[in-house]
């Protein structure tokens, strides 16, 4: 642990986010298995440090010392992943084929329950039609949902192959949503934003596109999160209410059905997402129709993910709405997406993820208080208020939580997809053949 911390603190190593290594100023080693981390500030997130993980110093330290600048791409995990001593789980890597496969075998040093399978081969098949064919041909036994088939494809396969495979649809923490660019005059008006939400029937979208297998999202906080508050008001599907709000905001129906303001400007936005993502493109088309029904014109313009995330969204160049996903991990304080100091700009190297440009003094104060409020019960009302402001100010339109389709053969049991950030192999030692 000390080595991992030292390597991370060294600027030449080039670790991305440096805040943890700055804040964690000392580690006290008590014995070979116990240590204390010393931070320069108190936060309730002290037990959620995912980016600092132990490294085997006896193997890695010499490589790091030889060239700290190159270390991040020259670790043994990258260059010799089959080297004994690197892995601490029930399986270890014994072979890799770049771009093709990773072979795992039981780890003799694992002190937990011995996994029943001697060897597991993880294969890469990027084309999903080919992946499905590989499954049906028996060349792969199971498809893990994390990077597997899109939900609609998996549901179609389930109708044809339910007797051969088990299909498990696991809702997760990733939620699809639409960021609204609040710098646009029309979207700066809260009434227009509420009308946008009232005009869309998210239940119908989920039902029509995903056979009702994904949960509708009304907030960025997952319902499984202990800080989720179901009493926070929700904006229902109400097209009549949407029309009324738009009338109030001065947007009147024009001769072609699209609303216009007193200056004759059309109520028209761009809706962007990642090109080639079939489920997002379907959602876009349904939304476009629903908004058209209340007099809002939506123009679909999609870009490759690299351009969309690397330029358009991160530099706030979208002219209206951007559809993409965030992860709603438990009690994850949404400072970077909602605090007014996190609005990306050239002056701050485009860092920050408040792409909507949301500014709300009370939200800022809540986001600053939350991490330093250690008592969970004291945090609860703060979390409720954050969800309330999010629901009423509507900087973002949450759509639904994504679900992953896990598929495994009927002879296999014990697979437990997690639904959170850990992969479905988390309890791999419980996988076994049906007796």
């Amino acid at each position: 642990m000390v080595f991992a911390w030292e390597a991370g603190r060294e600027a030449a190593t080039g670790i991305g986010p440096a805040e943890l290594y700055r804040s964690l100023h000392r580690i006290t080693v008590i014995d070979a298995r116990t240590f204390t981390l010393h931070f320069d500030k108190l936060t309730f997130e002290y037990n959620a440090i995912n980016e600092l993980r132990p490294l085997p110093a006896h193997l890695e330290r010499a490589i790091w010392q030889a060239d700290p600048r190159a270390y991040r791409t020259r670790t043994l995990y990258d260059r010799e992943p089959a080297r004994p001593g690197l892995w601490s789980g029930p399986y270890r890597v014994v072979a890799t084929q770049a771009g093709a496969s990773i072979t795992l075998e039981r780890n003799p040093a694992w002190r937990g329950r011995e996994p029943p399978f001697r060897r597991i081969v993880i294969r890469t098949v990027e084309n999903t039609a080919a992946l499905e064919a590989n499954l049906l041909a028996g060349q792969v036994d199971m498809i893990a949902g994390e990077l597997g088939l899109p939900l609609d494809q998996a549901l179609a396969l389930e109708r044809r192959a339910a007797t051969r495979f088990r299909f498990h649809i696991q809702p997760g923490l990733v939620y699809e949503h639409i960021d609204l660019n609040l710098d646009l005059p029309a979207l700066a008006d809260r009434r227009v934003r509420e009308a946008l939400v009232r005009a869309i029937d998210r239940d119908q979208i989920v039902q029509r596109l995903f056979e009702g297998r994904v949960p509708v999202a009304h907030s960025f906080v997952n319902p499984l999160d202990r800080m989720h508050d179901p009493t926070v008001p929700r904006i229902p599907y109400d097209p009549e209410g949407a029309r009324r709000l738009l009338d109030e905001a001065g947007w009147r129906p024009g001769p072609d059905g699209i609303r216009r303001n007193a200056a004759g400007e059309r109520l028209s936005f761009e809706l962007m997402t990642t090109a080639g993502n079939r489920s997002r493109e379907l959602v876009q088309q349904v939304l476009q129709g629903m908004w058209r029904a209340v007099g809002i014109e939506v123009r679909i313009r999609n870009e490759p993910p690299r351009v969309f995330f690397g330029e358009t969204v991160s530099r706030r160049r979208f002219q209206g709405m951007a559809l993409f996903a965030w992860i709603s991990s438990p009690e994850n304080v949404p400072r970077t997406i909602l605090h007014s100091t996190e609005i990306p700009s050239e002056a701050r190297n485009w860092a920050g993820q408040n792409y909507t440009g949301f500014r709300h003094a009370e939200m800022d104060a809540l986001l600053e208080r939350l991490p330093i409020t250690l008592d969970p019960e004291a945090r609860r009302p703060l979390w409720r208020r954050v969800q309330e402001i999010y629901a009423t100010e509507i900087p973002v339109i949450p759509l639904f939580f994504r679900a992953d389709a896990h598929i495994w053969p009927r002879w296999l049991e014990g697979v437990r997809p997690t639904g959170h950030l850990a992969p479905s192999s988390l309890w791999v030692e419980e996988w076994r053949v049906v007796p």
Partner: protein
Amino acid sequence: MLRLIGERLVQAAVTVVLTSFAAYGLIGLMPGDPIDLAIASDPRLSAADAERLRALHGLDRPLLERYLAWAASALAGEFGFSRLFAAPAHEVLADALINSLALLVPTTIASAAIGIGLGILAARRPRGAIDAVVNAVAFAGIAMPSFWLGILLIILFAVMLGWLPAGGPPPEPTLSAWLRHLALPSLTLTVLGLAAYARQTRAAMIEALGEPWIRTARAKGASLSRVLLRHALPNAAIPIVTVAALDFATLVSGALVVETVFAWPGMGKLLYDAILGNDYNVALLALLLAALVTLAASLAADLIQLALDPRLRR
């Protein structure tokens, strides 16, 4: 001849330099540098982190300065390290190149042999039954999307019949395993590749068979096969050589779509992943190799055409 080779080598050197600069520039100007993408995916990255990382990786320097530094290293034989594969770029490339050559060399030979054969057969009786069939096959080969044919073959031979693996490299390095795993992607590429040869050969052979010296050869009693292979084919070979040279150049740039469908880790897939993953060193080396082989193939085609057609030597 030597003068021509010398001129071509000078042209090739200039082309390689220009290609390397264009490739470096285009990759560098692509939207979303590695730090932009890191910021978009990691909420913990601060403005200071972004600045520090840009400086550390030299991304704060002008593009030309970065190119010159890369070119100096490349001239010294140091092509850098792959950030995606954590290995020297040339090693990454070597593995993918072997896979691509294993797939594409037999495919190219089979495409050429079958395509030229079909073209000759079709040219014997233009608008006859065989010609119609060859034309249909050639059009199908040109029109059929490779991913569609690939998936179709997987469904037929791997899913329904269970005769062949659906894709991926062989799990063990035996000849039979290699042949089984190469069968379907090779078949896909051969079907698609033979069309160009068949059409070029057919057109050139029909033209050659209408020439007076063919009538003379027939009048002198030469057999049909002798007329076709000894008299007509060498004269029809010039456009076929051009197609073959272009095909040869693709050996090192891979077949992206087919490699993706069959999960075959070849050059096409590597280049695609390297560009999308900002793996500059691998992408540049792969592009340069493709440019070099294209130039070499073009030179070889010119030399073969000179050998085939004495009129070109004047």
